[in-house]
């Protein structure tokens, strides 16, 4: 019964997607402009909550910034213009995707570097294993005889359970 309920609810939950904090009065009448505003605000950090975008956050500052983004788009700014406006005031921190510059090289390059390093180690280990001589497929007659004598010898007394 519970499994059935879950099976019925799961598609609904998946279809719901992330909830946005955009309030009814905020959306722009022009759907194309509003879509751009939504995309932009998903990339802009709410500086109060720090790990949410202004699209997600219900903080008052996030609401003000959403309004600001829409005002500037309506005034004819392009996306980069809106981003630059906020970066000039809040710094790169306002961007959820940090720009590539010397201070962020470690941030951007660490994942591929770790991947390359790990891949290299794995490759070396793999090749070593392949180079190791394979075991002989069959035991030789001498080996068979030795196994037989070893098995015939009385072993140590078995432990009583």
């Amino acid at each position, binding site marked *: 019964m519970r499994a059935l309920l879950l099976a019925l609810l799961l598609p609904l939950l998946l279809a719901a997607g992330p909830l946005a904090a955009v309030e009814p009065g905020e959306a722009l009448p022009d759907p194309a402009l509003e879509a751009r505003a939504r995309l932009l605000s998903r990339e802009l950090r709410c*500086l*109060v909550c*720090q790990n949410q975008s202004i699209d997600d956050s219900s903080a*008052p*500052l996030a609401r*003000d*910034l959403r309004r*600001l983004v829409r005002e500037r788009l309506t005034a004819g700014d392009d996306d980069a213009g809106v981003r630059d406006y906020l*970066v*000039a*005031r*809040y*710094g*790169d*921190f306002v961007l959820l995707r940090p720009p590539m510059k010397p201070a962020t090289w*470690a941030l951007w390059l660490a994942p591929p570097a770790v991947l390359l*390093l790990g891949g290299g180690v794995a490759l070396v280990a793999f090749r070593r294993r392949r180079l190791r001589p394979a075991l002989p497929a069959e035991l030789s007659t001498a080996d068979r005889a030795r196994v037989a004598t070893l098995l015939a010898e009385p072993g140590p007394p078995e432990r009583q359970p």
Partner: protein
Amino acid sequence: MRRLLYIVPALVFALIAAYLLAGLGLDPKTLPSAMIDKPAPAFDLPALADVAPALKTADLGGEVALVNVFASWCVPCRAEHPILMRLAAEKGVPIYGINQKDKPDDARRFLAQLGNPYRRIGVDADGRASIEWGVYGVPETFVIDRAGRIRYRHVGAFGPQDLDPILAMIERLRRG
């Protein structure tokens, strides 16, 4: 060669550990200001009537001053208020206020109760001027030099321990 292979993971670990350890010392709540050494932003705010004259960009500069973003609804503002009073009264530091998203009557009551350290107060009813300053919380305080540039930013309430560094900074700017 083989021994080197065993040392490499330890080196990688040490590198990552050092990087993360350095991160532990940083306070994630204190954001670097993008406004340091830039001129004060363009803004023009109406006055808090009966208390202080209005505040706009042109009022800044000429003198080393503080710009303090405050609101009566902000509890830390209440805590830092005595320090602002002391800076204004004892050190003669001009302090300009940006009253963010406040009801004018509440702001007047706040200043009547605790005293008014501000030379001018701009009423930032919608918070837009605060965004121009790169403010993301209340209170925040900026030190403005004689050329009207932002030289220092303090996020959150001033505590007694913040008084000496800010006074030293003001002295240096006054001389320089």
